[in-house]
């Protein structure tokens, strides 16, 4: 049986409705367009909003545990519905636009940021069949739409007519534009290896076993992964690169003048973006939804979904962990890190991978297994260091998660 994507199912459904005469006289294209808008709305409300919301709850909760606090635990079991309460609260707030702000750009900016984040969900797959559109330029599209975010942030910074906002917007523009380069080059190494820009194609080029992942394909992709993750943290304005909204320096950066739902849109995008970062890392480097063959198609589909989610959320968790641990870098240090270290290193990765492709066009099994062993070794050393720290932490560790 040919595997069909959701889009095919949807087209079939709409076609059948047209044949049954539900939309007499309407042009077919208009019906399609309306159906797509409806589908987008459903996807947004059913999937993306809870995703960003639950990520926000998870972040607050994880962060609280790391800081020996409790965190939100009142709304719903363990406070998991906190984001709904926050959303309702922010919707009911007064829609405040400062008198000196630009009347057109100020309300527009949150939506542009939001659109930039939302469009990424088009190409992110959750399973072999669960993808909105398997574009053949998927990754390029992803890099392109995430760049829209910076326009929104600059707009917010400029239109607020607030000096802190302006400084935050400028910092953000400089930061995101700079870090697009190492991120793009790190992605390019994987495009070299996979030979395709389609997200599904990249995942299909990998296997379920870790040594079949592109992460361990060769030493250069291994480095590229860390480059990508660091650059993505910087693009997502996450600590240690959260200088555009550094609350102790710039009050709140470009969101200083925003309140209510507009404020929430920025953070909606930020938390959703956190998931996008994890998902893209999973697609490119960690084998995506690949699972061992099970036999039953339904179980396999569910497994693929779960595996993809867990892998993506692992990196979301790491980003939260990093945020709870590290201080913030300074603007000039941030730029120095990008231009002096990460850009040359990512070029090295691209050239190295290209050379590798020439020498070993089909990859090397030994190199993959060797890199996998190295990865396990690094993880082992990290865990050992972690154990040492926990062992040496004399004060009572608050490890009980259910307070």
């Amino acid at each position, binding site marked *: 049986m040919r595997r069909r994507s959701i889009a095919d199912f949807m087209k079939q459904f709409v076609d059948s409705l047209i044949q049954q005469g539900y939309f007499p006289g309407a042009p077919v294209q208009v019906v399609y367009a309306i159906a797509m808008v409806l589908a987008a709305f459903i996807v947004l409300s059913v999937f993306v909003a809870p995703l960003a919301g639950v990520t926000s709850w998870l972040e607050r909760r994880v962060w609280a545990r*790391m*800081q*020996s*606090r409790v965190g939100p635990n009142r709304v719903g079991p363990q406070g998991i519905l906190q984001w709904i309460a926050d959303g309702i609260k922010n919707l009911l707030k007064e829609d405040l636009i400062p008198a000196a702000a630009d009347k057109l750009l100020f309300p527009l900016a949150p939506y542009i940021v939001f659109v930039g984040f939302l469009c990424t969900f088009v190409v992110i797959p959750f399973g072999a069949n669960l993808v909105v559109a398997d574009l053949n330029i998927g990754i390029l599209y992803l890099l392109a739409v995430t760049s829209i975010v910076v326009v929104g942030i600059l707009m917010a910074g400029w239109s607020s007519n607030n*000096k*802190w906002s302006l*400084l935050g917007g*400028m*910092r953000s523009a400089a930061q995101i534009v700079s870090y697009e380069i190492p991120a793009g080059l790190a992605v390019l190494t994987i495009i070299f290896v996979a030979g395709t820009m389609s997200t599904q194609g990249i995942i299909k080029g990998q296997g379920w076993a870790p040594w079949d992942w592109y992460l361990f394909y060769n030493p250069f992709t291994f480095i590229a992964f860390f480059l990508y993750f660091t650059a993505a943290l910087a693009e997502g304005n996450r*600590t*240690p690169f*959260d*200088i555009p909204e*550094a*609350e*102790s*320096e*710039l*009050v709140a950066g470009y969101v200083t003048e925003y309140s209510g739902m507009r404020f929430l849109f920025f953070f909606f995008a930020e938390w959703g973006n956190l998931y996008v970062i994890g998902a893209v890392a999973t697609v490119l480097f960690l084998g995506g939804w690949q699972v061992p063959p099970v036999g039953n198609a339904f179980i396999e589909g569910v497994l693929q979904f779960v595996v993809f989610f867990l892998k993506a959320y692992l990196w979301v968790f790491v980003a939260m962990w990093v945020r*709870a*641990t*590290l*201080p*913030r*870098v*300074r*603007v*000039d*240090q941030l730029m120095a890190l990008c231009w002096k270290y990460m850009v040359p290193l990512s070029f090295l990765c691209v050239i190295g991978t290209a050379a590798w492709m020439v020498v070993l066009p089909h990859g090397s099994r030994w190199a993959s297994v060797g890199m996998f062993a190295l990865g396990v070794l690094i993880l082992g050393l990290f865990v050992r260091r972690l154990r040492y*720290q926990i062992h*040496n*932490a*004399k*004060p009572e560790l608050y490890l009980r998660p259910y307070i």
Partner: protein
Amino acid sequence: MGEAVYPESEVFHTEDMTISVGPQHPSTHGVLRFVVRTDGEVIGEAIPDVGYLHRSIEKIGEKCTYHGYVPYTDRADYLAAMFANQGFCMAAEKLGATEVTRRGEFCRVIACELNRIASHLISVGTFGQDIGAITPFLHALRERETINDLMEEICGARLTYNYIRIGGVGYDITQETCDKILVFLDHFDPIVDEYNRLLSYNKIYIERLANVAAITKEEAFQYNLVGPNLRASGVKWDIRRDIPYSVYPELEFEVPVGHGEKGTIGDCYDRYWVRMQELQESSKIVRQCLKMMPKGPAISKVPRKFKPPAGEVYVRVEAPRGDMGYYVVSDGTEYPYRVRIRTGSFTAMAIIDKLSRGIMVADLIALIASLDVDAPEIDR
């Protein structure tokens, strides 16, 4: 001649931006305000604007009796209220030639050093927060809560203690509380190591602080810096050691000074590091006091109508923010004729303008945090 088509001032010109940092800015530690002139991210000058938290504490001193003024001194620096209490009481005792009981002195030192730990915890915690690491701040506040609990057991208050009275202390520290303090110190000493592992040795943290806004020894003298800020510049000066008061001469403790741990002497990291070491020194002092504490009354007999003979006196105590001086003039009545409080934060504010020239906005925040200026203490 390649003359510019437009005069520079008409089309292509740059403007300095004047930003008001505070008084509601999140990292000015209360209600400070700086008028900052910046060229993009680089600061041209940052002029401190003090006075937002002025409560006329000195003037109130002229309207209260000596006993009645002690609670007001709490508010002079509410993060280290014990030292403000002690400074005023020592001044009053010196005026009235009042003896302090020996047990009272030990109680004072224990309470003060615990308060110093609490105050330094706030200082290093908010320092981390200003640099962007929020976890150390909450971990520091966690330990400070325990100290607040201990303080509550000692004197019934958690922030404004009103514990030290003229002639001794208000309440004796019971054996039970002593045991609890010891348990806390056993718990606290390893935690300093943990802070070091989490924050002090963090690469980003060191990069942010080392070589930033270094104060030389000469500058420190010129601008009259005191306390940890002075010691960070490499000057071994501590009122507890050099102008001894209370029972400090009997106690053994080190005076940590800045050695340029990760950068130059007197940079932000040194100021941070001196405070981290003082945490351990204070813990040591409290341990010694708990061992040496004699039996006896906690407060000597002091007349309710305390009327010191006419005269004037200046006493200094080593508060967490440095030399805290009380200048009290008596005219022989029940009320002081004049009370003047000299605090470390106020003088530290003056050097910010000089150091801020040419550093970045983020460094200014680090500089303010490293000087540990405290709004109530600046304005009184």
